[in-house]
């Protein structure tokens, strides 16, 4: 059990060195291929074994990549009524479910309804609904068949709006679109809402349903997906020199962020603190990252500066690590620019549960929060040897026990969107820390 600050008689400062409210993570919810409850998710993530399989949701025979990390047995009716579920695209169903689970994990959160907010990262939104409706109405006469539900189901803000509706929360409800960096950006922007005093509690997360025929066909055309169809569980191999692309994933993850002093006052269980956040843009290319990694490195440095930290303070890196040749080469360069030849331990959760697109940064922020709380870095799957000239300390085979140390969590999205978070143990909370999970 976690001791409250009052019980220990020494409450951490409510504000940081810049006078901003401090922000802690008090709840986690996941609907991911690695598990739809926190225990299963953690067990899978820390196993270092990929859950990628041949696609079952549709016939992938005509695709160059026929493997994915699917979310098994998802039932939205467990979370919302049948009528509400019928009005949601699958990406929003995932989001609502993960958000409600996160809130359930957090318990009674502080703040009146108008001090509670939602920030949800979304990559592609309701593209499957758009696709189905387009097929249905693919002629001038067919326009009469367009559903009145089309717009409410495809708008990317539907996930955050539906979560706010479900909870009766009247604070800001934002959608963040930064492609694969959406989830990380959402968590960072949510922390800012609390830091600046606009909200007391924020549900922050991300979602997408990338395992659709249309989405996978499109990413195949971009050359982004692995073609190791005969060996799905070893297909995603971030930073390994033999990598050939990522494995598509789907799902959602949410974190409950609270103002530190309010969380402590209610005796909340705390996973860790959001210590730093930064985002910037490559201003380079709509799909390719800036090869030299300079902007990604700048983003990491800014996140550390926001946390009042130096590279030496970082315990481990939760890498974007997609397993594409271009991303991982860029990210490895950026990590070496920031940390020099010897990097902190690096792990890449996409090696285990695939690329959740708009949900990726959020699911990986959950991994980061658990890394802090457990004092253990999960292993990356399928890494043997990095690119020539790189020397990343990739964690393989088994978890690395580090104790509660700050984690730098990276996300880099199509369009050159870079976002980095620093999550760490609650500073000033004493040697035992406040974390428990």
């Amino acid at each position, binding site marked *: 059990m976690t001791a409250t600050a009052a019980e220990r008689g020494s409450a951490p400062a409510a504000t940081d060195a810049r006078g901003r409210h401090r922000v802690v993570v008090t709840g986690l919810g996941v609907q991911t291929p690695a598990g739809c409850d926190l225990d299963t998710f953690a067990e899978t993530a820390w196993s270092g074994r990929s859950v990628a399989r041949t696609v079952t949701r549709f016939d992938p025979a005509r695709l160059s990549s026929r493997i994915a990390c699917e979310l098994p047995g998802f039932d939205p009716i467990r979370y919302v*009524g*049948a*009528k509400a579920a*019928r*009005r949601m695209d699958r990406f929003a169903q995932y989001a609502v479910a993960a958000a409600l689970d996160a809130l359930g994990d957090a318990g009674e959160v502080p703040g009146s309804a108008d001090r509670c907010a939602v920030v949800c990262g979304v990559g592609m939104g309701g593209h499957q609904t758009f696709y189905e409706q387009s097929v249905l109405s693919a002629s001038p006469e067919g326009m*009469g*068949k367009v*559903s*009145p*539900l089309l717009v*409410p189901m495809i708008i990317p803000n539907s996930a955050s709006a539906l979560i706010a509706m479900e909870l009766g929360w009247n604070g800001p409800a934002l959608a963040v679109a930064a492609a694969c960096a959406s989830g990380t950006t959402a968590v960072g922007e949510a922390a800012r809402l609390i830091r600046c005093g606009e909200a007391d509690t924020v549900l922050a997360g991300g979602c997408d349903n990338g395992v659709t025929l249309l989405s996978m066909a499109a990413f195949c055309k971009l050359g982004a997906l692995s073609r190791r169809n005969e060996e799905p569980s070893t297909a995603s191999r971030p930073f390994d020199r033999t990598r050939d692309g990522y494995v598509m994933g789907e799902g959602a993850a949410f974190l409950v962020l609270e103002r530190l002093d309010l969380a402590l006052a209610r005796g909340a269980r705390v996973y860790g603190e959001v210590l730093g956040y930064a985002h910037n843009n490559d201003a380079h290319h709509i799909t390719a990252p800036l090869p030299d990694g300079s902007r990604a490195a700048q983003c990491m440095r800014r996140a550390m500066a926001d946390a009042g930290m130096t590279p030496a303070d970082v315990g481990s890196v939760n890498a974007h690590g997609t397993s594409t040749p271009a991303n991982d080469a860029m990210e490895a360069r950026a990590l070496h620019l920031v940390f020099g030849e010897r990097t902190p331990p690096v792990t890449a959760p996409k090696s285990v549960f695939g690329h959740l697109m708009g949900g990726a940064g959020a699911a990986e922020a959950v991994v980061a929060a658990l890394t802090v709380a457990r004092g253990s870095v999960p292993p990356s799957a399928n890494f043997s040897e990095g690119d020539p000239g790189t020397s990343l300390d990739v964690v393989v085979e088994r978890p690395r026990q580090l104790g509660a140390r700050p984690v730098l969590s990276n996300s880099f999205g199509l369009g050159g969107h870079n976002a980095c978070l620093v999550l760490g143990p609650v500073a000033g909370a004493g040697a035992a820390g406040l974390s428990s999970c």
Partner: protein
Amino acid sequence: MKHKAAVTQQESTATEAEREATFGILREICVSILTVRPEEVTPEVSLRDGLGADSLDFAELSMALEDHGVVLSEEDVRSVDTVADLMDIVLRAPGRKVSA
């Protein structure tokens, strides 16, 4: 009230078989769109207050009825209350194909 009186007058022209067939189709549509159980759909139940229909539901109900040759006017949507009201509107629609 005026509208309801007009509807009542039309009711008498439909045969019992037509009314039964129409109700069966409306029940099916309501079950599908409003996500309710078949037994909840009775002639007397209010679409809004009893079955929870909102503006999006009415847009979908209108589309579903168009497949049966019935075009709901805005006035129809505004004035309709119960399933029976909707049935009466369908039964007096000139192009209806529901009971053929």
